[in-house]
């Protein structure tokens, strides 16, 4: 009677290893994580308390702080995204193997992109607040520096995956480098560029909202103030506003995507 072997021996070992590794990781994490039982039992009561204190929402806070802060958040996100787009282009060009043949430059550029991505915008904000002082400047730069890695990586990938045909034609015609970049690479990468830009802008609006927690301007500052005062009804308003902004941005980006991209 013939046996059905679903996986080759090599595959079986691989699968078993993966499961074991995953199990070990989870068990180890569970054991070392500290859970204070009293806090856990308290949790439902605490949560109920939280919601009770958030209602009724303090609408007055809108006029006091939130409206201005919202505008600041919007500009931080948008300006930060624009700066990132501008700065990420040269880095992406350096990182793409087909644009820049030098392996050292590729590596350097890729390192810049990874570092930018690895550090959270919140942490970037901490650094920039230390350098430039609290306020929207720190926030804008934090958004910009974090986004360079995101946009740059996707751009570099788009550049590397580009079909060579049109580029070869330009080279064969004797076009100088800048012309090849402008007329050969740019038209092909343009749709991806705008799509990525829109995607990142959406994410940046969410990120800008929290940067104020470390002093980098925007709604986060209002949120931070409210939290420090333990005015949960003001916190409630901030959360509501953030939620509304996120929804509005999603609607806006879907609309732009379906019409233009």
């Amino acid at each position, binding site marked *: 009677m013939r046996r059905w072997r679903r996986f080759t021996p090599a595959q079986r070992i691989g699968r078993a290893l993966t499961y074991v590794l995953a199990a070990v990781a989870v068990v180890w994490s569970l054991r070392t994580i500290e859970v204070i039982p009293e806090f856990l039992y308290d949790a439902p009561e605490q949560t109920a308390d939280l919601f009770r204190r958030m209602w009724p929402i303090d609408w007055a806070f809108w006029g006091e702080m939130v409206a201005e802060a919202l505008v600041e958040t919007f*500009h931080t996100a948008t300006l930060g995204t624009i700066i990132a787009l501008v700065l990420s282009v040269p880095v992406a060009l350096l990182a793409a193997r087909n644009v820049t043949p030098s392996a050292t430059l590729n590596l350097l550029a890729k390192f810049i992109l990874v570092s930018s991505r690895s550090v959270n915008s919140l*942490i970037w904000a901490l650094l920039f607040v230390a350098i*430039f002082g609290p306020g929207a*400047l720190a926030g804008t730069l934090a958004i910009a520096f974090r986004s360079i890695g995101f946009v740059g990586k996707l751009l570099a990938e788009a550049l590397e995956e580009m079909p060579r045909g049109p580029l070869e034609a330009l080279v064969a015609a004797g076009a100088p480098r800048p012309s090849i970049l402008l007329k050969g690479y740019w038209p092909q990468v343009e749709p991806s560029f705008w799509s990525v830009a829109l995607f990142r802008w959406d994410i940046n609006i969410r990120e800008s909202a929290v940067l104020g927690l470390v002093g980098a301007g925007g709604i986060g500052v209002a949120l931070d103030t409210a939290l420090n005062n333990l005015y949960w009804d003001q916190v409630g308003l901030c959360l509501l506003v953030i939620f509304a902004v996120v929804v509005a941005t999603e609607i806006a980006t879907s609309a732009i995507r379906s019409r233009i991209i």
Partner: protein
Amino acid sequence: MDRRVSAAARTPFPANWTVRALWTALALYVLYACGILDVSWDRFLRGLDNGDRFLRRMFPPDLSAQKLDLLRVGMLESMQIAVLSTAAGIVLSLPLGLLAARNLMPGWVSWTARGAIALCRSFHPVITAILFVKAVGFGALAGVLALIVASMGFISKLFAEAIEEMSLRQVEAVRATGAGFFNVLVMGVFPQVIARFIGFCVYQLDSNLRNSTMVGIVGGGGIGATLFTAYQRFDYDFVLTILLAIIAVIMVAEVVSAQLRKAFQ
């Protein structure tokens, strides 16, 4: 021959006024926003000066044994937060994603599930971390819970989309054999979407590792707490050490996750 061909049809590169207007608007906006945010060249230059001093205080990174120990504990905790939140997030996202698929579920079920997913995605993990800190206290548990919510928002959404893009004909054939709902899922639906699902999970593990470095700033445990403490104490050389460690770990994680995703293609 029609000689009244318009001049515009003859020009090879007619000026696109809409695009030009958009670029001009963009440039004007940048100037306007810079004004509103008080982003002036002056401030920037002063900041650079400050930045120079700041960077000097960061170099060289603090590599003393005591600090390295703190670093190790913090990074390990971050990794644990990432592992647990991804594991729990995967387990919860599987049913949630299924329930949100409009081609598998009745309307009211899928819309409720989609609402839940949208809620999970609305708030930045930092904000949910703050709320969980209030609910369960400071520490890694709050961070884990916050990232579980973030994971569910991401994985379930993409999973539901993958299911909605699958071939219904293959599923129809399995149903025609008399298989029950779960058998149809196991042999008809999952084989089509599992590769992509694993891809999303690996990506989320990576993302959770990044986010776990930050939830500590608001009390959610992990290296973020260590970083924030060092920052507030002006221990900038230790801050640099931590940053370098974070970059290194995430670089490794990215490479590993890229390989894993390729292996499951």
